[in-house]
């Protein structure tokens, strides 16, 4: 039982080191945006509570806005959580076996994770582009355009895949 191992900031030189450092920074920026979106979501809910319960006025946009801002925060935050080793993994078996087999097991595990993240990122861009091209809205009372809610998802999942590559490179070096 362990969280996937977290690595020190890359110290290697050359293209690989630069790539890793670049991804680390991008993931940190995404995390700051995600934290802000989470906080904004909380404020939107509080605004709704104030309008609905205290002023007794109509509330139209807050619920949907909160759903999107917080869900977007969760997906934008994934690359940072990957970088800091926060996605729970069971490395007990590889750790017990050790040696080359451990390395191979963990590499396969990483490649599976990477494959998943690429698929997710592909699917997210597909959804975003379709929603943008066809001008989809959410079909609710507020009825905003859907694509702005999907943009952070596509960016977050793409960064996740790119960060996974950085983690694999970091593990090799």
């Amino acid at each position, binding site marked *: 039982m362990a969280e996937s191992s977290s690595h020190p900031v890359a110290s290697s030189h050359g293209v690989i080191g630069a790539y890793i450092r670049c991804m680390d920074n991008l993931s940190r920026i995404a995390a700051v945006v995600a934290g802000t979106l989470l906080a904004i979501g909380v404020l939107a809910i509080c605004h709704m509570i104030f309008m*609905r*319960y205290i002023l*007794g*006025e*109509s*509330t*139209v946009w807050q*619920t949907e806005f909160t759903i999107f801002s917080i869900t977007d925060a969760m997906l934008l935050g994934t690359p940072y959580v990957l970088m800091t080793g926060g996605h729970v993994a069971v490395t007990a078996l590889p750790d017990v076996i050790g040696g080359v087999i451990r390395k191979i097991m963990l590499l396969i595990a990483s490649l599976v994770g990477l494959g998943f993240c690429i698929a997710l990122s592909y699917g997210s861009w597909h959804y975003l582009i379709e929603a943008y091209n*066809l001008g*989809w*809205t*959410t*079909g*609710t*009372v*507020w*009825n905003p355009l*859907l694509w702005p809610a999907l943009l952070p998802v596509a960016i977050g999942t793409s960064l996740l895949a790119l960060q996974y590559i950085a983690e694999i490179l970091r593990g090799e070096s």
Partner: protein
Amino acid sequence: AQTVLRLSHQFPGGQGDVRDEMAQLMADEVAAADVDLEIQVYPGQSLFKAKEQWSALVRGRLDMTSLPLDYASGRHPEFSATLMPGLVRNHDRAQRLNDSEFMTMIKDIINEAGARVLADAWLAGGFASSMRCITSPDTVEGQTMRAAGPAFDEMLATAGASIASMPSSEIYTAMQTGVLDGANTSSGSFVSYRIYEQVDCLTAPGENALWFMYEPILISEQSWDGLNEEQQQALTEAGQKAEEFFASEAAALDQEMVEVFKENGVKVVTMSKEDYQAWLDIAKQSSYKTFAENVPMGQELIDAALAVE
């Protein structure tokens, strides 16, 4: 080998919900037709979530569904016309509407998107309030209302109501705590969410109902094309039977709501012809107008629906 069609809907399975029974009836009819075709019903969102069914259907990820067509209005704004105040009025008129130019236009959009209608179904609904009976437009003034869609919201707001948006499952709590004074939803939801425990007055559909919603059984065009002629024939016939079954049950649903509310000591009223006309006038200045301005063919759709006798 046997072709299996997956039918998804959001209503409770095996508990007497008319829309679930409609789906089961189609499955039974198709099985009885003995054309190597099976309909597997996934009730209660056990496969796709309610709002994801349309998208799954038109992409061929799902074969069949029974859903409120308005759920897809984010992708096809024209579908809002199937949950537009005052366009249907009563069950008899709903039957005539099914064969009208209005429904031809709606079904053309459904077909273009990649689905086809197997069975039509129009559900009625009403208003309930813990403040005062909702009949003429001035009765909603000052009430905080939960409406069932943008078009209703706009009409109610124009008549002077304050709007709170929430899913129908939250109406009960919101009424209990005084966040809501009144609500507007289908007869079935009013009963299943026990709204009668929280209100003093029910506006039943009757002859002049403002609230009607279209909930057809649809099949994906891709799945339809994959069937042979016999199978298509069997599905069409099963759809016809399901539609007839629903038409015979629809009015009974309203009657059941009225009885349950009366048993619980709730006053039951209906809208008069004059009330209905007054609401229609407000709708024309508000939701119809917005719909006509924002939706291609919006005005034509409204005109076509209102033209039905």
